[in-house]
């Protein structure tokens, strides 16, 4: 699975936010507020990924357990899927 083209992430004073333009913008016109873990996962999804490749990347970058990584990855993918930003 992969993120649709056109998702933009930027850092604010408090957190990360994401909005959509281009192909992704046709599906979603709002703004998503993210913590650093979610921003990292979304950024990784720009390349074709699997749940396990994302979990692996997350545990390498952050100090999280395999279990917490799995929960985070599933949560982010589900949220992105709900707003139509994932292509299979």
């Amino acid at each position: 699975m992969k993120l649709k083209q056109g998702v933009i992430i930027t850092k604010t004073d408090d957190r990360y936010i994401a909005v959509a333009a281009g192909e992704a913008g046709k599906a979603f016109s709002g703004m998503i507020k993210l913590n650093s873990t979610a921003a990292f996962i979304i950024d990784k999804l720009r390349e074709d990924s699997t749940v396990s490749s994302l979990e692996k990347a997350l545990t390498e970058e952050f100090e999280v357990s395999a279990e917490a990584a799995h929960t985070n990855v599933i949560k982010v993918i589900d949220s992105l899927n709900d707003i139509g930003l994932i292509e299979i």
Partner: protein
Amino acid sequence: MSRIKKSYCFASIPVSVEYMYGYSEQLFKQYETDLLPKIFISVCEADLKFEDSMYDGVFDNGYLESLAILRKLSTAFSHMGILLFHSSAILFDGRAYLYTASSGTGKSTHTALCRKVFGDRVKMINDDKPFLRFENGIWRVYGSPWNGKHGLGNNISAPLGGVAILKRGTKNCMKRITSDIALPTLFAQSYRPQKASDMQCVLDLVVNLSRNPIYELRCDMSDEAAELSLGVMSKQLGGIYNEA
């Protein structure tokens, strides 16, 4: 069809615009300039077709052309620190105050109240789509020809004093909100281009804009609502102010 090519000064930037219809020529009249243009905009039939598809065929070509020009201008401006921001903008005691909300909430009604209550102390900058420009560390609000269905606006500018996110209420209250809370509304009321590279510029401008004093205003249509909003914003007060 003969083409019109003229230079205009929008948000202090000289712009050459090439177009076809008299509607825009009339609309832009008070923005004409002799200055050497820095950017060049040209619209063609395909641009009008695109606008037509966005608005389901309800507008005539002249009006559609003015929208096409605005789209191209706002896209170019996003790379120059200028944001098109959907709001009713007024000048009060030397500063610009913006009232923003989705269409139909009562932005224009509220700024009309401000004019009624404060008289000549309030001057209309733009009733619908002012340009906001970030330059030398401050935001400045500029009038534009795209000034809403009542044609209220002037070719003037002023430093930004505050932004009120307007919501309808049964009593009048106003509070300062954090940039984090303000961001989604500020983004929703900003011009949003389709290309990711343009959108990146807009998003960065919106994040920057959110660092200004932003308020949430819940109000009815009484004179007190205008007294409250301009009173709080011009004194840069925080907290919750409730006239009840």
